[in-house]
């Protein structure tokens, strides 16, 4: 009898679980953005999260939150995770916030957003943050994981640690300074061929590689630096807004793409 009861209980749990066993998808939900000013801003601050944002032809935001269930977890645990709301998005006019900085459950957040959007993404100890196909101002903070952005138009501030920053701009916001910083990870960014920038690069013996001709400026005019550290200034295409890149124990690549 006990065995039958257990089997029945398991069937009920499995029947009500929304397929969140071992990282399977949970239900996605749509959020309408208010206000009239565009682009809207989407701010995500969730610890222990892998975040993927993709621009699409839509006016709302589609959010899917999947708890990452440890291997070997019981169906009961998986069902409990599936039924738990770990984040509570709030929309206030043209600002959407997903705020859970004290979260401890590993999550995968997948967002489909309007193509024209400003993003403020922050996580730690989760996984890579990835952004694709958007146009706007990106501000991304991560730690112990990398950051990737693909086919982005606009500008970016990106910082992480123990992870690489890999990205591609198809076009840039005129006059916008940008900054990329990591430790123990390469910075590898592709820019459109009409990049104009004043470079400030900080790296160590690994140095940097540039597809763009760089006019070297004054090199740290007498300022003391630890052995092996280098601070390099220069100009690309006559100069422009500041492009700052800082890493250590890894190289910096400025690549020239095909543009937009």
């Amino acid at each position, binding site marked *: 009898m006990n065995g039958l009861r257990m089997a029945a209980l398991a069937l009920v749990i499995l029947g009500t679980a929304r397929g969140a066993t071992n990282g399977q998808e949970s239900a996605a939900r749509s959020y309408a953005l208010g206000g009239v000013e565009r682009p809207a801003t989407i701010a995500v601050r969730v610890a222990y999260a892998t975040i993927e944002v993709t621009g699409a032809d839509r006016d709302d935001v589609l959010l899917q939150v999947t708890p990452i269930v440890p291997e070997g977890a019981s169906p009961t645990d998986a069902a409990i995770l599936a039924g738990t709301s770990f984040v509570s998005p709030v929309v206030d006019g043209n600002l959407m916030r997903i705020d859970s900085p004290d979260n401890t459950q590993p999550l995968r957040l997948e967002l489909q957003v309007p193509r024209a959007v400003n993003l403020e993404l922050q996580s730690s100890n989760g996984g890579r943050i990835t952004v694709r196909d958007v146009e706007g101002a990106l501000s991304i903070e991560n730690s112990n994981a990398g950051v990737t952005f693909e086919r982005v138009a606009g500008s970016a501030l990106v910082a992480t640690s123990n992870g690489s920053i890999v990205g591609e701009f198809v076009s840039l916001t005129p006059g916008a300074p940008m900054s990329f*910083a990591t430790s123990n990870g390469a910075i590898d960014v592709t820019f459109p061929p009409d990049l104009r920038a004043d470079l400030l690069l900080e790296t160590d013996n690994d140095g940097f590689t540039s597809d763009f001709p760089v006019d070297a400026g004054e090199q740290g005019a007498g300022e003391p630096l630890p052995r092996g550290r280098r601070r390099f200034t220069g100009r690309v295409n006559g100069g422009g807004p500041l492009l700052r890149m800082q890493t250590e124990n890894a190289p910096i690549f400025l690549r020239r793409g095909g543009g937009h």
Partner: protein
Amino acid sequence: MTHDHGCTECGVADLLMWRSGDADASLRDRVGAHLEVCAVCRATLAEFDVGCDSYATVPLPALDPERYARMLRRATLASPARPAWPWRIAALLVLAFGGGVVATMLLLPGDGTPRPLVASLRQGTPHERLRAAVTSAVEAAPPQELLAALLDALRSDPSTNVRLAALDALRGRPLTPRQGQLLVDAFADQTHPLLRKSLIELYVAQEVREAVPLLRAVLDGDSDASVRNRARWALEALS
């Protein structure tokens, strides 16, 4: 409307509107982008900056009374009182250029309203804060209010990149002993190892000897080996 201050692309009235925070988005963007490439306009803006002792707005870390008293004595000796007459000179210059509305704003008694760079550093979006810190780095003579905002950004800005830009803007600036101590106290607010190491490099570059006790503690106890190595280098450089 253009005014002969040496730049034909941007008039004084536009600069002052931008500076006051009353510019619309179009003007704000245009002037902001222009300031990055025009030293003449930056110099014109600097002439209208008025020093003010807004250091009282910087929250002080908890200190024991004796140490606080010593710090105040050093700060008083290092910082002579600023005269009020630059307000009048700035107002006369604006009147001479015919900016009546802006002149009225300058003649009003100071009420601590932040200037655009300071306001952007404290309240802007991440990109506005980065732009403000980057622009601050090329200010020839940043007012105390701006230095205070940069120190605040170093301690509490949510963006690692804005903090790094604030460090850049502070590099090479003459600092009062009080500001030097705030720079030392800022170390405790840095969780990113890049920031801890960059700040240690700044202590050496600025010869902040007040940092020596901190560096000894970092050498003994920081969890990151590369930060400890940087502290060792800094102690040798400052000795």
